[in-house]
């Protein structure tokens, strides 16, 4: 293996593959803005597999309740202890929904407590500068679902470094389009993904 590979976590419960266009879109973004060596396609990596440890950055999303089995928990715990970064995004538009409750519970149980990530955290200046913290998504602004703008992301910190980054902002929907459609946006809404991945690979 060489270069960065966008890995999507595959877990036994739930719809882990609910955002099939996100990997290609983010790979396109990484290629567009950075000089990172990046593989042209993403991979799906089972959380219960040792393959997980080959990827320093893993993306996890879904709509349905997240219930990890013991193997998945043990692997995720090891993944975090070895310095990997798990980026979790709630693909729903609801408040305190089933994915949110179950996934945060699993993360807290497996890796550690989730805390509000300050909006001046180095994550927001790792590549692009986001003065106001995490960028909002259209689902937060257009009246869908919770009709709220989440002011913070959540994170599990280990020795000051983010082990698990958790988002309620539904980036899975925000970024779920064909990379060719990026030209239709006046401002590329996937730039925040560059910060997350650069942070994961360099901090």
């Amino acid at each position, binding site marked *: *293996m*060489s*270069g960065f590979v966008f890995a999507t976590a595959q877990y036994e*419960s739930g719809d882990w*593959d609910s955002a*099939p*266009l996100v*990997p*290609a879109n983010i*790979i*396109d973004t990484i*290629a*567009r803005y*950075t*000089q*990172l*060596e*990046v593989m*042209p*396609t*993403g991979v799906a990596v089972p959380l219960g597999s*040792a393959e997980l*440890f*080959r990827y*320093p950055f893993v993306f996890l999303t879904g*709509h*349905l*309740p997240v*219930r990890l*089995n*013991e193997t998945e928990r043990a692997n995720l715990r*090891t993944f975090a*202890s*070895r*310095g990997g970064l798990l980026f979790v995004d709630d693909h*729903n538009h609801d408040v305190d*929904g*089933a994915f949110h409750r*179950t996934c945060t*519970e699993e993360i807290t*149980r497996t890796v550690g407590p989730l805390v509000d990530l300050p909006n001046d955290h180095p994550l927001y200046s790792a590549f692009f500068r986001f003065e106001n913290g995490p960028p909002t998504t259209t689902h937060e602004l257009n009246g869908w679902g919770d009709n709220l703008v989440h002011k913070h992301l959540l994170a599990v910190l*280990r*020795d000051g470094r983010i082990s698990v980054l958790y988002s309620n902002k539904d980036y899975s*929907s925000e970024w779920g389009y*064909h*990379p060719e459609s990026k030209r239709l946006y006046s401002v590329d809404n996937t730039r925040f993904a560059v910060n997350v991945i650069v942070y994961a*690979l*360099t901090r």
Partner: protein
Amino acid sequence: MSEIKEGALATARARVSRTQVVLLAGVVTSALFWALAAATLALGALVGLDWWVGLTSQVRVLLRPFAAFIGAAAAVVVAWRGRGARSPERVALWIEEAAPRLRYALVTVLEGRFAAAAPRLEEEVAAVSWWRPLVRAALRATLVPAAALALGVLALAALPRGAVERVGAPRPGDALLRPGPRGGPADPLSPLVATVVSPAYARLAPVTLEDPDQIAALAGSAVRIEGRGDARRLHGRLGADTPASGPGGGRIGGDTLTFAAGGGRWRAGFVMPAEPAALVLTAEGRERVVVLAPQPDSVPVVTLSAPARDTIFRAATGVLPLAAEARDDIGLDAAWFELIVSAGEGETFTFRTAVVHRTAAGGARALALRATLRLDSLGLAPGNIVHLRAVAADGNTVAGPGKGVSETRTLRIARVGEYDSIALEGAPPLFADTSLLSQRMLLMLAEALEARRPRMERPPFVDESRRIASDQARLRRRVGDVIFMRLGGAPQGEEGEGEGERRGGLSPEELLRAADSVTTMTMGEALDFAGGESPVVAVNRPLLEAYNAMWDAGRELEIGEPGRAIPHMRAALEAIQRARNAVRVYLRGRAAPLVVDVARVRLAGSREGAGGGRRAPRPALTLARGRLLSRFRTALPLLAARDPAAVDSLLLLRVDALGGAPAAAAALGEAIAALRAGRDATAPLVRARRALEAEPLRGGPLAAWEGGW
């Protein structure tokens, strides 16, 4: 004669019996006094020994029974020595010895073998009194041990009351009762007694520790420490680097540690913190470090035994047995089954949650949950999913209840028709479908043109016919594309390529020949690849027939003969209709992966040279352990120099190791205990060093990342 003899004998025997009673009483009294005296003296000696060397509570518990044993042994010895008092003959001999004037008259009378001399002997015995030596003997047997007893009692009375209490009624925490050195103020740092009262939910008895190096207790336990001396000379703080706040006070985890004084002792209380810490007490430039090691309250362990696996139900009816077991290290508060019912699909989901069979455990360490779930009571619809698990909570009121959960079982209600069909997805219409419409339209145009033929001039008639021929040719090329698509080739229009260019392995001429061969085949004839028929023909025979018919129709139209073209056009339409009626089944599957052309995105032309070079491996996440190792290496020279601060350094090191290096912390604890006891600590120190120097674990082949992990 006989009466006299018997009377004389009775008198002598009666006097001996009375003497025997006195002697026996003397022996018993003497044994009793000697027992008490020996026990008292032994107790006094042991109290003195404890005062001098400071015996442990485990030894002191044995001292009182040991003193009683000494007393009992003394009584046995005395009773054994006075065993002769039980025999009248031995008593008579003792009397003979005490009163020599009897000249064995008493013994002879008691023997009874010289009956004739009995009266005279009786008279001789009656003439002698042994009362005085008997009283002397009795007094001697009683007064001497009584004096010894008095001496023992005086000795105990002279000893400090606390010293006697430590031996007389030993209990945990009575180290403070041991008198300190005379002639100076008591040391406030030693001895130290800690009393730990666990949180009420734990239902554990209070524990008292004497002179502890470490206080291990549940987080949130109330800890009370007590010592001797003046509290005003005492400072206290948490952690080695925290400055002392001032005399008589200190800081414990942000709370002020207040020292109270009274009765020559100081006392302080605090709550066991959640993280390991060091309690540092300072007095007159000396420090005492006590490790505070909070013991975690583990969350309950829950096992869901029924249902045993994920299930799909054909209908949402029936009763589902539920079974789970929960265990906890302290005590369970409650356990229950938890349900989440999810409905919907795609981007629209709704969820309901429910709790089933919540059971109070009342602090039990193990609990078996049994319940039943009526599926029809949940109002489930086809396609709904039930996520079921068991949950147990302990009674932790300090950090909040710890919740343990089981694996989750997923129960799904089958969708309507799920068992009667396979999942299909509609496919977009093929070119053949659109070709059908186009061919029908061309046929209608040709028929209309042919109908107008008698009313038209030849030249415009031919022009109109050629326009239809042009459309027929375009449609023919599209049908040709469909034929290549079916073989897996890309749909490419003939317009974009030269006529002579080969497409899909066939030139247009070869395609036409294939179409001709199809047309000449007998309908219904079996396809025979081995007989020379190519896959192109085998897969596309109806379309090839249409292709050939179109070709013929186009040729007729090109020369202005739509009437002759119409049969070919009808044949083409019929062939397309047959091709369209072919069954098309597309099995549902994953979308093809989207491959990003990285080089194109970067406007780089190729991937080579676009990368920014390999990045350096991430440094290993062992900095914390490295710092511990550095501190450990700093402490070792202090040990070699016999510096008392070395043990404190190891204690503080152990506090920090408790969190991240438990093996090293355990080894350091053993080393500290050995050093305090004056034993060789080499072995545990070596283990501690090895635990701190351990390499990070590797979890299998990691290719590009393994250098940094």
